[in-house]
């Protein structure tokens, strides 16, 4: 029964949380309020912290984690499957439609401004990551300059410089991610 309810709840989450993984968090909040015995002391902030720091789509990570708390491994599987079903169905249909209207002039003129807009959105996402990476959490307490994590800034500058060197910049992003993790460990960030 728990699995059925989980499936239904996460199917709705997958269908109505528009705009990416973080949009699922309010749905999780409601679930925690509605089924307190599933989640114990777990708070949405905990789910968000783990979903954001592990690799993978945030919506799926959050669903796996919450599902596991509610009903173990079957719960994790059911919640994850339910949360992706709406996306999968809709994206498949959209993909069909896109092939058909690809060359229409309306679609082309809409995309001519959508691409710059998405570039701006990616810049905004990068800004958020950069801010959390280079500043400590308590900015207000001691002023902006005191919040700067200088070791992180140094690492950022070095990595960014490497990413502009010919040859070196061809190295796969995965290696930069691993190198970042190792450097963080060594520098004690």
């Amino acid at each position, binding site marked *: 029964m728990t699995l059925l309810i989980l499936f239904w709840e996460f199917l709705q989450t997958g*269908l109505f*949380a*528009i705009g*990416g*993984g973080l949009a*699922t968090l309010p749905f999780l909040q409601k679930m925690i309020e509605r089924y307190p015995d599933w989640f114990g002391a777990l708070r949405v902030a905990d789910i968000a*912290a*783990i*979903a*954001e*720091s*592990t*690799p*993978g*789509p945030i*919506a*799926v990570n959050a669903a*796996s984690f919450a599902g*596991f708390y509610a009903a173990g*491994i079957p719960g*994790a599987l059911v919640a994850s499957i339910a*949360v*992706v079903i*709406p*996306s*999968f169905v*809709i994206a*498949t249909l959209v993909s*069909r439609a*896109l092939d058909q209207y690809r060359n229409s002039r309306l679609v082309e003129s*809409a*995309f001519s*401004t*959508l691409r*710059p*807009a*998405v*570039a*701006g*959105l990616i810049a*905004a*996402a*990068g800004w*958020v*990551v950069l801010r*959390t990476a280079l500043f400590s959490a308590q900015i207000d307490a001691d002023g902006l300059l005191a919040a700067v994590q200088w070791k992180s800034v140094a*690492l*950022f500058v070095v990595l*960014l410089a490497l990413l502009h060197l010919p040859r070196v910049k061809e190295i*796969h*992003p*995965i290696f*930069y*991610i691993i190198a*970042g*993790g190792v*450097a*963080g*460990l060594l520098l004690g*960030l």
Partner: protein
Amino acid sequence: MKVKLKILGELYLTFLKIGAFMFGGGYSMLPLLSRELVTRHGWITEETLLDYFAIAQCMPGALAINTATLVGNKRGGVLGGAAALLGVVMVPMALIIAIAAFLTRFWQLPAVASAFAGIRVAVAALIAAALVNLIRSNVKNALGIEVCIFAFVIVAVFGQSPIFVVLAAAIVGLVAGRVKR
């Protein structure tokens, strides 16, 4: 049949790799997607990737799931979409289950926090580097520059939802296309 299986296998493995290393969710995966899908396999162009992001933003569910399904569908139909989707969720799900089962405290270890602080710096650097190319190849005229800055300010400064930005940008594009004609 054999060819089809090869395509499905490639899609699965490529998205397995992307899923295992996409930290930060959503747009943070751009550098990885661009390297794997555009540079390495040549399955789509950078423009198409941005188109997919724009579409995925307006659809329900995680950006990564929507993008994986769209790319998979383009390469190998419905089954391709399923292969890409399975690939992208496999490692994250296994990891989350392991963490929820054994390692809830693991996340509070100082060493783990340090490693993740470093990974965040690396992701920020990758996005910054990828943005340069992205803007160069996709922001081509004055209207594009305006829309790009507008999108950034609305989301980064005012904290508004990206969905409205995408819808507004589509409308601006339609109107501008109309005026030109």
